[in-house]
């Protein structure tokens, strides 16, 4: 595994499976009366959030605290960033304070890459979402949820998602979740189909390792999992589609459409959901919808990533066996 987690595309199949397997063990910790491990005791992790995100920040914070790390939360609002401090200055401040890892969310695509590769800071950098680029831990938690539901909890250990058909529906153009998922799911052997209005499909999508379709109804019957993306009203300033109603009618998931999916297929959503827009309340509240599970799995997956990047003197390599002389 690399020293940083910037993009889902950086992960090899073995890395990804190791993270999912580790997350499965971390999930067991959540079922115990004492949901805490001493693993990262004495390590300081800074959650550096230049963009608002309650869900991702809380998820990382929970994961860090369950591993006993010391957590510093940094929100750009009201900080010296709003007074004009640069990313470089912020990074050097953290370096001087001896931070052991940085979790960064930034509105600009590439900010985590810059932080990791500039030499401003020596600590591992974990991308918690940058612009429209990547959100690797989201992709990992989605893959984890799919593996649990489609392959099995214990039966899934060591396995990838070979041959599973995943459909991602909605605003692909602005979605780092879609980009990260396409990369990771392809690495894990799944076949991905993107479904969106032509205006919300990015230029150059033909080079991505996936199919593109404009008809949700055609793709549904052969999907093992359907991931609905949020239609981000704040990004809908240009005329991407005529009306919300029309979008909802063509690309929204309602009970009638869900009925066309195979029986085992699940509905996923990275949250927050806009009920009545991309997904109806009926679908969102059904047993087949994994939204709440995805949130719980997010903590396990982030624990796994933090452990594998920070738990040793260097990131995890291919599973070493416990040696005799360490007993």
């Amino acid at each position, binding site marked *: 595994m690399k020293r940083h987690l910037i993009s889902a595309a950086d992960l090899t199949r073995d890395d990804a499976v*190791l993270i999912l*397997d*580790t997350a499965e*063990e*971390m999930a*067991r910790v959540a079922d*115990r*009366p*004492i949901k*805490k*491990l*001493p*693993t990262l005791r004495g390590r300081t992790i800074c959650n550096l959030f230049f963009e608002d995100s309650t869900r991702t920040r809380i998820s990382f914070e929970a994961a860090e605290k369950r591993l006993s790390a010391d957590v510093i939360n940094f929100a750009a609002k009201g900080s010296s960033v709003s007074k004009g401090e640069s990313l470089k200055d912020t990074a050097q401040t953290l370096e001087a304070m001896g931070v052991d890892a940085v979790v960064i969310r930034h509105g600009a695509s590439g900010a985590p890459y810059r932080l990791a590769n500039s030499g401003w800071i020596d600590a591992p950098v974990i991308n918690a979402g940058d612009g429209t680029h990547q959100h690797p831990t989201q992709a990992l938690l989605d893959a984890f949820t799919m593996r649990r539901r489609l392959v099995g909890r214990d039966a899934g250990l060591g396995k990838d998602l070979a041959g599973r058909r995943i459909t991602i529906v909605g605003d692909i153009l602005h979605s780092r979740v879609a980009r990260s998922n396409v990369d990771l799911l392809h690495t894990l052997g799944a076949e991905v189909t993107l479904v969106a209005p032509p205006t919300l499909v990015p230029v150059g999508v033909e080079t991505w390792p996936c199919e593109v379709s404009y008809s949700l109804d055609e793709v549904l019957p052969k999907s093992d999992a359907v991931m609905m993306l949020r239609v981000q009203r704040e990004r809908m300033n240009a005329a991407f589609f005529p009306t919300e109603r029309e979008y909802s009618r063509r690309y929204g998931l309602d009970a009638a459409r869900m009925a066309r999916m195979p029986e085992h297929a699940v509905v996923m959503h990275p949250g927050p959901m806009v009920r009545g827009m991309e997904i109806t309340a009926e679908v969102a509240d059904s047993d087949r919808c994994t939204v709440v599970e995805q949130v719980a799995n997010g903590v396990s997956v982030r624990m796994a990533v933090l*452990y*594998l*990047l*920070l*738990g*040793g*003197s*260097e*990131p*995890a*390599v*291919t*599973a*070493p*066996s*416990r*040696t*005799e*002389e*360490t*007993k």
Partner: protein
Amino acid sequence: MDAQALNAGAVESGPMRPVLEAQDIARVLTRIAHEIVERAKGADDVVLLGIPTRGVFLARRLAAKLAEITGTKIPVGSLDITMYRDDLRMKPARAIGRTEIPGDDIDGRLVVLVDDVLFSGRTIRAALDALGDLGRPRAVQLAVLVDRGHRELPIRADYVGKNLPTSLREIVKVQLQEEDGRDAVLLGQRTDAEAGQ
């Protein structure tokens, strides 16, 4: 230690001499099972927890022998201690093993930890920490196949298959049918490079 050596596991150097063969291992496990029954006065509340990897196989074998002796089924599980190690920062991050607690919990039970080799005692310290987070056993005992000495912590086994006085220049390797295709305890010399680590 460099990553390469770690990946290769305990590096062998030169010929390894067997100190216990398959029938010896079977015999000492039978003896340990009898000792457990004797000390626990039956084995009614005993839970066996093996420490991965080979401790788990030994725990299962012990459970089978205990079942033969007592006529009751003895719960057996595994306790991974990776995340409780005190040397995590000194080596690359390791893959995590399996923790499986049989039954509801370990509260009020007699937990017998099972491992293959007892050496510095740090693994057992980590196991005791891990147990503390899982519940409150009535008592905790330790069964090991081989005690090779060189303790770095005040820890002692309750049941020992074989006391094996060794020098730090030697390496002890346990092989079990389930993992290695044969049962044996081997003793060999480490090279200077390994001894320096």
